[in-house]
């Protein structure tokens, strides 16, 4: 990326875009010109302003005459929330398992190793589809838990390495000698060493979680209507690519903009911290 000081232009731009997305997600409801659920059959497939539409519907309307701007704002809110909660849950789950397996070792370490192997061997999407099949339909919480299943193995592997390494460090051994509890040592001395790696890994897997959610929702097996997400909008609009392309292309562009900017930030942070 362009070498202009510590903060290349592209990174600054990505950061600003991500900040705008976060604000849009938080203030989605007050920013929406219409109610998301408002159906207006007299105003179906109105084009966006830049394609000759009116300011009543700045980004046009879909096949039910719902306002695209309001739908996209709501979609940003839902997609980002699920990705954030899913990523955080996965990070907590994976880090805990990894630290435990590295610290305790023995049988537990072997068990976690086998689980990580399993997760790495079997294609993630298929595992997740199998879980979606048995989860109760249209259950938001179950869906988030499944999202958390994605990518936990990466945190487990990294955290395990850190814990293994820390066990042999003098500062940890010194604490063991003076009788500090294992919990205290791990949370106070080992975990802080892992924070940089953890944050970078999270910023790298966050866009992947967004992609997973939108892919599943696009296929009609993720978030269920009437609730919406960016993936649901694309899935619902795919039949209208010919007569009302904005219904699909607008949410699609929003996803691309979000995932590319977050990936740029994550990649930049990775180079900085030096995580593999």
């Amino acid at each position, binding site marked *: *990326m362009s070498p202009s000081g510590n903060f290349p232009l592209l990174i600054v731009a990505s950061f600003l875009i991500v900040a705008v997305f976060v604000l849009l997600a938080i203030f989605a409801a007050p920013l929406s010109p219409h109610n998301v659920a408002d159906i207006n059959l007299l105003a179906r497939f109105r084009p966006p302003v830049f394609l000759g539409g009116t300011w009543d519907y700045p980004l046009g309307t879909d096949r039910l005459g719902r306002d695209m701007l309001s739908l996209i704002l709501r979609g940003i809110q839902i997609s980002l929330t699920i990705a954030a909660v899913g990523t955080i849950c996965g990070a907590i789950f994976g880090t805990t398992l990894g630290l435990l397996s590295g610290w305790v070792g023995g049988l537990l370490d072997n068990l976690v190793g086998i689980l990580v192997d399993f997760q790495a061997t079997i294609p*993630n999407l*298929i595992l997740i589809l*199998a879980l979606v099949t048995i989860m109760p339909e249209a259950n938001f919480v179950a869906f988030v838990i499944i999202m958390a299943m994605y990518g936990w193995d990466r945190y487990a592997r990294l955290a395990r390495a850190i814990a293994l390494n820390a066990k042999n460090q003098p500062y940890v051994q010194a604490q063991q000698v003076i009788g500090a509890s294992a919990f205290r040592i791990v949370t106070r001395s080992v975990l802080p060493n892992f924070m940089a790696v953890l944050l970078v890994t999270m910023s790298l897997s966050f866009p992947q979680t967004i992609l997973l959610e939108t892919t599943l929702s696009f296929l*009609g097996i993720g978030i269920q209507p009437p609730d919406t997400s960016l993936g649901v909008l694309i899935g619902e609009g795919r039949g209208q690519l010919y007569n009302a392309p904005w219904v699909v292309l607008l949410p699609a562009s929003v996803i691309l903009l979000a995932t*590319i900017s977050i990936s740029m930030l994550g990649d930049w942070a990775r180079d900085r911290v030096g995580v*593999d």
Partner: protein
Amino acid sequence: MNWLLLRSGRAILTLLLLLTFTFFTLAASGDPALQKFSPDVDLATIAAFREKWGLNEPIWKQFLIYLERLAHFDFGMSYRTGRPALEVVLDRVPVTLSLAIPSIVLSIVIGIPLGFYAAMNKGRLADRITILVAVMGLAIPPFLLGIFLMYVFSIWLGWLPPSGYVNWTSYIMPVASISAVYAAIFARFTRSAMVEVMSHPMIETAKASGLATGLVQRVHVLPNVLLPLVTITALEFGNVVTFAAVIENLFSWPGAGTLLIEAVAGRDYAVVEAVLLLTGSTMILANFLTDLSYGLIDPRIRDYRRAYRRSPDQLPSPEGAA
């Protein structure tokens, strides 16, 4: 312990874990008797069905029964079609492979040379552009790329058939959507593997001793990146197949992917399990074979294994031996 034994043990363990996972997801999906019969069937029939399929046995015994059924290639019935699930899935596999195989070949043919080229020009413009494209490629899901391609080439320009199989041009957009993303993954991986090898002192030595750059790359760098490249290719193949599933759905191809999505949406458990077991065991086998091939690719690992068999207690820590 023998190295081969250890690896086969690991593969079998993973397979067992996969079987346990499918068994419990199947068990969690509800009572098969109630799924098979309509609600108005009499209780005696249900009782007989339960008896016949061992549903009254303790759970561990049911698991053994399940394994026995799988050993006879009985994957259960697809209740949406009324045919054996395995048969339903195998019917669709050729279509999926006809998409996945060209996609992975194309990703490799584009991605690896690109990563190689970037690493050779590390820090220069070509390298930076490659990284940028690779990061973007990773951030774009194949289905979105497919939608944009469909819009541009089918609707706007009208050059390519938008969906289904018409003629060979129907392959262009689906294959392009998958391989663009995976070429980015391969490029990125090749680059970082190369950069790592090139920072090794032996490369410095080779260069200092006056060897031509091309020779250094061929003789010293390439053999060392081969191992990680083979590993990632085996691992990513499974992911390419699953993304082919999504792409099939987008372009309305009658492959195993479309079937899988329909089965998930329609809660056709036997079909989902059959797909999971087939892809899972293929991946386990692929990884096992990759492990076996390490010795062929890297003589150090071969020597290490030989030494390990002779005296497992006193070993130098091998470089690259996993």
